[in-house]
């Protein structure tokens, strides 16, 4: 498990990048409407950092800053071209006021 930051350090609708995620790959951790989500930071279409993307809170998705592909923060699925491959999602754990990310699909209950 990798510590990301203290709860409250990511403003609502923003994200932080963890340069070295649980398996060395950069991870983006988002704060949307009180919930935290973690996905791989690099867009599957081209080398862009999703941390720099715009969060569409209504859709719980992030728009790739370059080419406007949207990825669901819950499932990692792209909404349409040019991305064709989902990004991986990761489990976020909140413990003692800190945000951690774990190399495990978010859908799998952490325990």
């Amino acid at each position: 498990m990798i510590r990301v930051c203290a709860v409250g350090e990511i403003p609502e609708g923003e994200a932080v990048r963890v340069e070295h995620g649980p398996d060395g790959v950069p991870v983006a951790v988002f704060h949307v409407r009180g919930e935290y989500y973690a996905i791989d930071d690099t867009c599957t279409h081209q080398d862009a950092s999703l941390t720099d993307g715009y969060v569409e809170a209504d859709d719980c998705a992030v728009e790739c800053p370059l080419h406007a592909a949207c990825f669901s923060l819950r499932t990692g699925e792209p909404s349409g071209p040019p991305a064709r491959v989902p990004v991986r999602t990761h489990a976020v754990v909140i413990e003692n006021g800190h945000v951690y990310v774990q190399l495990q699909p978010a859908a799998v209950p952490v325990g």
Partner: protein
Amino acid sequence: MTEHSDLEVVAVVGTGLAGLSSARALRELGHNGRIVLIGDEKHDPYDRPPLSKAFLAGEWDPEKISLGLPTDAGLDLDWRLGQRAVGLRPGEAGGWVVVLDGGDEVRADGVVIATGARARKLPSERPLSGVHTLRTLDDALALKAELSPGARLVIVGGGFIGAEIASTAVSLEVDVTVVEVAPALLAGPLGAEVGAAMAALHESNGVKVHTGVGVSALAPDPEEPDWVGAVVLADGREIPADVVVVGIGSEPNTEWLEGTGLLGPQGSLSGGVLTEEDGRTALSGVVATGDCTALHHPFAGRVMRQEHWTHAAQHPAQAVAALLGVPAPPVAPAMRVPYVWSEQYGQNFQFAGHHQPGDETEVVDGDLAGPAFTVIYRRNGQPVGVFGVGQPKVFGRWRRELAKLLP
């Protein structure tokens, strides 16, 4: 408008991004009947933006630029690749007939026109080898084959496509010259001030830039008269060239629609097929979408062609909904701001909205001298466009600001 249930067969003419997106939208919006997808290119649908960038550089292969998805097999599409539509006429028993170049006819209850555009060429008395345009996969393969290290490439036209090819060619160690008739590169879309900064970026990467001068002729190589040897400028200068790329804009593929009753802006289909914002045309049961259309631009305040990747990706669902007579899926406000991107010399360029001569230019972040900056264009005090280099987050924020100004 034809009732949803009346549409058994829909013909989608064009197999680029807009055509494929239309076919997908037809299924998503509940069309259960046949879909015939007609395209003059023999390739499966592919993404065009990389053709001047990663694909031309040899970093990406055709598989990487494919637009296909595993789920497309479930769409049950009737493909007619390598067949060009040459005519459209009313069917004898209602509906429409799309005439193909081989003489085949496709009868359809509804038609989606998504034939896109082609690269504009210089008028020439006879074609010379070594002279290219770049629009298709085959164009990119042909150009790439001639971009060998040390080759002298002259790019006619300093717009986005020319600038991207220049950047890619530099990375391939090609000797690059750009000729632009306007006083600055990208002066039309970005204004002279930003255009000058763009020219400086090219020059700092070793590209020779000639602005404010047109091209009068492409001269053959005296040794090999079938090949291009030089670009002759309007002021008489000759620039030696082994390879020439002409990047002077596009023309919509609308000739096949002459005489159908479809309208273009100012009466001519050469300016695109005129549509409502939802893609409806002057003909019942016929919608149009993508690069071949002309419609109202929210920031230009007038009808114009919107040759944007995002338009070709998102507008088809609107047009198909209008054709089927079902509610259109919602579009996020930011997606309604016309948006283009580019990549040059490892930097990302993003533009949204509209720019026209006379707009004020305001640098809101960074410095025009680079490496990163964001510029806002204002008209009568109101922001109408944003251009950013290497500042996706600042750009994204301003793009949303523009979206708030949409009606």
